[in-house]
Structure formats: C-alpha cells, structure tokens
C-alpha cells in the first residue's frame, strides 16, 4: 500500500519520543523527592520486626550499586534507559521476589480484553447511532436520544461504574459486585469459568461502553451534518443511488475519518478512565494492580505500570496511524 517513508518515519519518531518521555519522567520525577523507597520499606519492615523475604537485601544492594548516589546522574540515567529498552522493570517491592514484569504480565490480559472489547463496541455503537441521528431520512424520534447521550458522555466512567454497582449488583443482585471471577473457581478454559468471567466483566464493560458511546455518537452526529452538506452527497443522490448506499458508502464512510483520528487521540483518556473503573470493581487488570501498588507504596511497580501503559498507548496509536492511510487515500499526499 501507499506508505511514504516520510510519513512512517514521522510516526515512528513520535512513538520513540513517547516511550522516551515516559521513561524519562519515570526516572526524574522520583528524584525530585528525597524519599528512598527501598530504605523506607526496609525500615518499615524492620520497625515492625516483620519478615524480609530472602534475597531482598541483595536486591536492594544490587539496586543501590546500579543507581546509587555515588554514580553521576547521567550514568544512572543511561543504566536506567538500558533497562527500560530491555523492558527490565525491576522487582516489585511488595511482592518480592516477583518482578514487575511478571505482575504486569498477569494483569495485562484482563485489561486488554476489557478495553479492546468495550472500546470497539462503544465506537461501533456510538458511531452508528450518531450517524443515524444525523441522517436526514431517519425518523425524528431519534433526536430524543441526543440529551441522554450528551449526559452520558459528560459523566466519567467510574462514576457510572459506582451507580451501576449500587443498582445492578447491590440492590437487584443481578451480577457480582466485583472481581474477575468467583472465589473458589480455578481458572481454566472450561465453559463454566468463561461464563463466570463474563458475568464479572459485564458491569465494568457496561460502564465503559455506556459512558463512551455518547461521545462517539455526538462526534459522529456533528461530522454527518457537515458531510451531508458536501457537494458529493448532492451529486451522489442525483446519480439515483439507493439510500442505503448513500448512507454507508458516501456519508458514513467520509464522516468516519475524523472519528478514527478521534479514537487514536482519545486512547489515553479511555485508558485513564478504565484504570479507575477497574479499581471500582476490583477487576484483576492493570488498573487495580496500579491502585494496589499505590496503596503499598510499591514504587517500582507504579513506575513500571505507568511506563508499560504509555508504551502500549504509543504502540496502539502507531498502529492506528498505519491503518488510517488505508481508510483515506488522500493521506499519503499530505
């Protein structure tokens, strides 16, 4: 297909810059405070007379050797960047000897599953709904959907999650209150387990879908209004095309382009929102892991999660940037 090298190169550089920024922020922000997470943890455990896992002291010493104050900052920075480049995110303080990578690896499939399904559904439903509302041949009652959609789009995901929990899970007891699967069920690829997972995922998914469908619908509605005023719509109608084709091949097809750009741009917003949704439901994804690591002051885990999420968003944006020229033949000539 048409991929001018300049276009690909620019996007690749953007991706690298995003990853580099994420890593750099993770390196420097903690340096701004005088706190030393590892010493704090050791002191805290020691003061409680608590149990220190075997190897923890060695890990701390290794870490301090690597990033210790005796090293100049630039050297520490380079070492750190080297680790990041190899996705070596270090050990989790609170779950030693598990590494940050392992913990993220356990949580991330849940998040990816939840996010891709909900984002895709919300995008499809919202876009189609918005297109139908704006379409001049649609029944006029569809306009009554605008106000509720607007309201939904203004509410943060996690508030909707709280409302849903209260009514659906707590009051009516239709679905479980939270978690990824029921206690006592062993994860496996059995029908019972999958059904159980689905049951737990409905509410988190529903809160993300409900809250983001409105935004897509409102955006699409605006674009459809603009597109319907274009000359090519008039000419297409004068060709005697069937309304169905006018709708999908001409109006929706063109109005979709800014929606796709919008999807790429709102990825970071969606991720932020869903981190909090996971927290509300205790869904075993990366958001809940992040909340737990914040609670346990497990700094390496916090930084690792933030880094991985930002890299994931960067990669997702890069992929979408590469898909976009397939949708819009004009892009390669920009």
């Amino acid at each position, binding site marked *: 297909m048409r991929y001018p090298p300049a276009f690909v190169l620019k996007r690749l550089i953007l991706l690298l810059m995003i990853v580099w920024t994420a890593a750099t922020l993770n390196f420097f922000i903690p340096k701004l405070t005088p706190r030393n997470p590892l010493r704090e943890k050791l002191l805290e455990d020691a003061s409680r007379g608590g149990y220190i896992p075997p190897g923890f002291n060695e890990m701390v010493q290794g870490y301090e050797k690597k990033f210790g104050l005796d090293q100049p900052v630039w050297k520490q920075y380079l070492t750190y960047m080297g680790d990041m480049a190899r996705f070596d995110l270090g050990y989790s303080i609170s779950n030693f000897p598990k590494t940050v990578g392992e913990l993220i690896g356990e949580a991330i499939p849940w998040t990816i599953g939840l996010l891709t399904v909900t984002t895709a559904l919300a995008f499809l439903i919202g876009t189609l709904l918005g297109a139908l509302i704006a379409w001049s041949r649609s029944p006029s009652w569809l306009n009554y959907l605008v106000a509720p959609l607007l309201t939904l789009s203004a509410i943060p995901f996690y508030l909707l999650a709280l409302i849903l929990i209260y009514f659906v899970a707590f009051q009516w007891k239709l679905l479980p209150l939270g978690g990824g699967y029921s206690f006592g069920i062993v994860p496996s690829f059995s029908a019972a387990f999958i059904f159980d997972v689905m049951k737990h995922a409905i509410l988190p998914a529903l809160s993300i879908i409900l809250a983001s469908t409105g935004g897509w619908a409102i955006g699409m509605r605006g674009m459809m209004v603009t597109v319907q005023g274009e*000359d090519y719509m008039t000419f297409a109608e004068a060709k005697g095309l069937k309304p169905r084709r006018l709708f999908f091949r001409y109006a929706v097809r063109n109005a979709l382009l800014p929606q796709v750009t919008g999807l790429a741009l709102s990825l970071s917003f969606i991720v932020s929102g869903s981190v909090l949704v996971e927290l509300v439901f205790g869904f075993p994804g990366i958001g809940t892991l992040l909340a737990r690591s914040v609670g346990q002051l497990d700094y390496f885990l916090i930084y690792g999660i933030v880094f991985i999420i930002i890299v994931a968003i960067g990669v997702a944006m890069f992929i979408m940037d590469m898909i976009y020229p397939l949708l819009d033949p004009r892009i390669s000539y920009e």
Partner: protein
Amino acid sequence: MNDNGYVLRVENLDVQYHTDAGTVYANSQVSFNLKPGERLGLVGESGSGKSTLALAILGMIKPPGRIGGGEIWLENTDLVKLPEEAIRQVRGRQVSMIPQGAMNSLNPVARIKDQLIDGMIDHELGLSRSEMNRMVREALEAVELDPQVAQMYPHELSGGMKQRACIAIAIAMNPKVIIADEPTSALDVVTQRQVMQTIGHLQAQLGSAVILIGHDMGLMAQFVDRIAVMYAGKLVELGSVKDTFTHPMHPYTQMLISSLPRLENKGTFNGIPGITPLLREIPTDCVFNSRCPQAIPICMQRVPKLLEHRPNQWAACHLYQSEEN
C-alpha cells in the same frame, strides 16, 4: 396527458422553503418545455431559483423545501407525483446531473470506477461485472479520459479531469435529460471551453436534451438553442438565442444583454443596479418593478403572465401586455 414531442414539460411549478425567518418562494409558477435533443440555457443571478428548479426536476427538494404545486412531466410521467423510490429510479438514468462544484462532487474516498459502477448497480440494469467495466471504459473514453483514470481517486485528478469524470457519470446511462448546473464555473477559460465542447459533442451523440444553468451569457450564446431567463423565482423570458440576443423583450433581459462587455464600448461597465430580492410572499405585482427603468403603473398592481408576444419568444412583462387589459 403529454403534448407529444416534448421530453420534459414543467408546468406552473411552485417551490417554497419554509424557514424560521419565514417562507421563501424559490420557484413561482415556472413553466417551460424541452424537446428531445434540445439545448436550453437557464440564466439568472444567484438566488434567482435556477438551482432550485434543477433540484425540483431531479426530485431532490428536501425539507424545509417543498414543491407547493405544479407538474413536471418527463414524457408520460408526472415526476411530482412519483413516490421516492420511483423518482430515484429516474435520477441518474433518465434525468442526470452534471454538478456545479466539480472540485468536491466526487466521493474523495472511492475510485472513479466505483463511482461510475455504483449507479449502474443501484439502477438494477442487470449487467455483469465485465459489461459494467466495459461501460466504464466507454464512458471515460467518451469524455476523453484515459481508461487508467478508472483506478484513480479524485484527489489524483486535475479540476478539468474531475469535471470530465462527473460528465462520464452523468452520461453513463444514456439519460434523456441532462441538467448541467454551471458545469464550468470552477474551471479556467481554456478547460471551460474543452469541457463544453465535450458536453455538446456527447449530447448530440446521445440525443439527450440539455438544460445548461449558468450566468455566463457568452457561454450561453455559443452553446444553447433557447434561453430561459429567471428572476426572483420566476421565468421572465424564454426564446431562441438569436431572438433573445438581438431583440430581448423583458427589461431585465435587456439589461443582462447590455451588461455584456463588448469591444466597442470598452472601459464602460454596465451593471444592473440593485439586487435580486428573495420572494417572501406570493407576489401580487411584477417582481422586477423596483429595479425596472421602464416600469409603468400596472407593474405595481398586477403580476405579468408569461405570454408568447412574438413567435416562439415569451416574456412576462406588462409592456407588451397592455393591449389585452
């Protein structure tokens, strides 16, 4: 019902737009007819109702617009009474349009070929893929475009090529009537001329009638057989090009003709003072009376009817009507 011999007959057509700011009568009592193969020029200032008339013939007047009355006969069918699905079948196949804004008239995300074929598919011509591909090739050849253009996207074409592609789409199904709405207004003069030649050539070949909408009187003089002049939603004069140019009857037409630049009066520029009013109510007097230098008392009292004052030359003006009253 139909007077035989006419391919299109518009009778007492009224089109109104109902808006919050009131009703605008965009076409009021418009009547004319068109023989097969004839070229009719429709001229008038912006806002005079030319494009509305074109949309009405294509059955594409949409809310807040409405056809208030009148008939549009395409051979033996009254298009005004046809249900939407039937008028869709007419569009593109029997009456087609060459659009005004060639720059934006093609779907930016579809290949030219697909934009030619989708019309054929939706008109259920019962053609195979290869037959449709052949028609695409023929249509492109007819407008003097390289067959490779079929695989291209609109942004890869120049303005003139885009307009040719639009013409190819308009003629692909041998329509009986082609409405060309200022087809060359976005093009430079040289391309303009080539495109008009192509339209003329094709029209003669297919035997379609053409309604050429525009305000370029020079272009009209070269291209059309008859001229219809619109003013504020009304047809004010209708006659052959020769008659209209040599002895225009309606004062508005007279002013239009005399405003054309000529070599002998180089330097002077005769505009028409005033602007075209939008009709906000059904007129009870002549719509041109406020700008007419020859207005007489009756012009303020009655609506002039479009009448044949000379053989084949029609005008809606009290100056020629006085003897009847």
